[in-house]
């Protein structure tokens, strides 16, 4: 046994590594999008891929998102595994018809004879000082579209594992990459990157007995910080990182809530008709008699994403999470 160097990597680097490993392992994996080739993407996630695998494997496309996703459909029909980059969340909207009407439905339409193994990478969420249209949380749209898998990593290791799993999946997967975690770091062993994570499994990031924080993506670090702070107030919070929004891991989530009896859903996306509504509703359906209080939601406001100078007021932070925890009707028991 040799000792191996364990060095820190950012989430962006982990994503790059996942793409590179997938491309090396499978010649049918093709990356396409705006600026993904020569530039390596505006977040540098595709850095070096065109140089290593050639422009035919990592291709700068014309500037047209429906065209990118639409041609990816055709490529997948012919046996390739396209990985599409949408440059920013709001710039995926022009591709919605292709996504909803074709990508999500082709397998079903053809009774399984024409699956579309397409990965759609979407940098999402705010907190990076982006101007209008650069900070949307669009997960509600994807979640409401049957036929898509939707995953979102919160750690460097999951970024690698989930992206590999997405590319390996025979079904379309939307990978929501939390922009403000692109530069978050963790140590890992580049000789032996973490494994492929199964899609559809949540993970308990912190165990606790008082209440469960159900969260994902950019709000995971916020919840972990809130859980630390809550300790001072006497609350021992469990934090569940969903990782996969579709399929939803009812098992892990409900096991936690049944244990703690209280839950808060935390996300950056708007509240109304956002992911939290679904999560609160299904947890309540399944754990009603275990609940000491209604499942509460801490979310972005129901407004267009704010300009950079005002975004801090919008983003759910530690205080807002703690305020919600405080409203979990502690007088009622436990």
């Amino acid at each position, binding site marked *: 046994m040799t000792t191996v160097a364990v060095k820190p990597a950012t989430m962006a680097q982990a994503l790059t590594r996942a793409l590179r490993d997938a491309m090396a392992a499978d010649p049918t994996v*093709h990356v396409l999008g705006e600026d993904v080739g020569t530039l390596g993407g505006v977040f540098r996630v595709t850095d070096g891929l065109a140089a290593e695998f*050639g*422009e*035919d494997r990592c*291709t700068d*496309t*014309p500037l*047209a998102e*429906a*065209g990118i*996703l*639409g*041609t*990816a*459909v*055709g*490529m*997948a*029909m*012919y*046996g*390739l595994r*396209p990985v599409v980059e949408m440059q920013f969340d709001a710039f995926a909207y*022009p591709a919605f*018809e*292709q996504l909803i*009407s*074709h990508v999500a*439905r*082709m*397998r*079903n*339409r*053809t*009774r*399984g*004879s*024409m*699956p579309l193994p397409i990965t759609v990478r979407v940098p999402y969420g705010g907190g990076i000082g982006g101007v209008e249209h650069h900070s949307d949380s669009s997960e509600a749209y994807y979640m409401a579209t*049957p*036929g898509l*898998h939707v995953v979102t990593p919160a750690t460097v290791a999951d970024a690698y594992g989930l992206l590999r799993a997405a590319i390996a*999946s*025979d*079904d379309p997967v939307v990978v929501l990459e939390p922009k403000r975690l692109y530069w978050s770091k963790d140590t890992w062993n580049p000789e032996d990157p973490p494994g492929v994570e199964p899609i*559809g499994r949540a993970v308990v990031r912190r165990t606790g007995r008082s209440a469960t924080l159900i969260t994902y993506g950019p709000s995971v670090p916020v919840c972990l910080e809130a859980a630390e702070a809550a300790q001072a107030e006497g609350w021992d919070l469990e934090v569940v990182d969903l990782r996969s929004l*579709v*399929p*939803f891991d*009812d*098992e892990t989530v409900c096991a936690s809530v049944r244990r703690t009896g209280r839950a808060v859903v935390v996300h950056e996306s708007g509240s109304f008709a956002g992911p939290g509504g679904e999560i609160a509703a299904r947890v309540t359906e399944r754990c009603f008699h275990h609940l000491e209080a209604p499942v509460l939601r801490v979310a972005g406001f129901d407004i267009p994403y704010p300009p950079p100078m005002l975004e801090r007021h919008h983003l759910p932070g530690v205080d807002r999470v703690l305020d919600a925890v405080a409203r979990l009707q502690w007088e009622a028991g436990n």
Partner: protein
Amino acid sequence: MTVMEQRGAYRPTPPPAWQPRTDPVPLLPDADPYRVLGTEAAARTAPELLLRLYAQLVRGRRYNVQATALTKQGRLAVYPSSTGQEACEVAAALVLEERDWLFPSYRDTLAAVARGVDPVEALTLLRGDWHTGYDPHEHRVAPLCTPLATQLPHAVGLAHAARLKGDDVVALAMVGDGGTSEGDFHEALNFAAVWQAPVVFLVQNNGFAISVPLAKQTAAPSLAHKAVGYGMPGRLVDGNDAAAVHEVLGEAVRTARAGGGPTLVEAVTYRIDAHTNADDATRYRGDAEVETWREHDPILLLERELTARGLLDEETRQSARDAAETMAADLRARMNQDAALDPMDLFDHVYAEPTPQLREQRALLRAELEAEEEGAR
């Protein structure tokens, strides 16, 4: 050399070397639609091809008539007829090699059938038992596409993928005049030209998008003129002249296969029937217009040519008619049987593996159906 490097496109290099790399003139269509039948060009067309086209046109017309009849009997949910457009439908199918791919719209079941898809399977979408009735890989026919123009980028992507894999496969994509107004039309043609993908775009300009006439759809000299804006050749052809459509598409397919990139073909034709059986065409057009076009019927044009060249005896006519009737009888008989339905299909193909959520919903429906059966007993 990568595919990207093979492309030819202009760059705005610094002045004064501004000249476009591509000469636009060869990209422009002729002013008049290209015709073969009844012209000197007809002599170039092999009699075998003309006779093959003839048999298919007769069969295609019979298919349209039969499918329309099936809507009246409630055996089809809806049928968008291609009566009057058979020359385009048939030529599009015949011009392709086995390894090529066809991308039809909802109106192009006939093209799928002419390419070998079982008519019953081609009509599954319109009968309503499932969204697609055939395995697209079997005859290399993509599922019929309803959202307008969205099939065009698919064709480009498939053709590009084939080229990357080293296969000399061509994709032929069909779209209507109305469909050319959609953003996806633009994006698909642009990708195809930039990638020099082996695609042929066939626009069937049948004069209308439901009720909307071409004059409200475009102010262009012709739809084929759009090609130059992508740097690909545009061709204008008489869409009721089967030999002309076959020739123009054939050339485009050969160019694409040889690495010469995409072509946009506009075939000028006319939709003789209403948009679908559910449409009332009298609300937006007069009978006189339809009648003029009937005189330019694709079967009529071909029969005239064949007769003039002494190629059409009664036996040939009869054998075409017989084949068409056999097809129609078989179609009628099979469509009059109830479709085999399995409600569990609703859940089983959404994903490779149903999600836990879908398994729950599947179990719910299964239980309901069992209770229903129970009750029925």
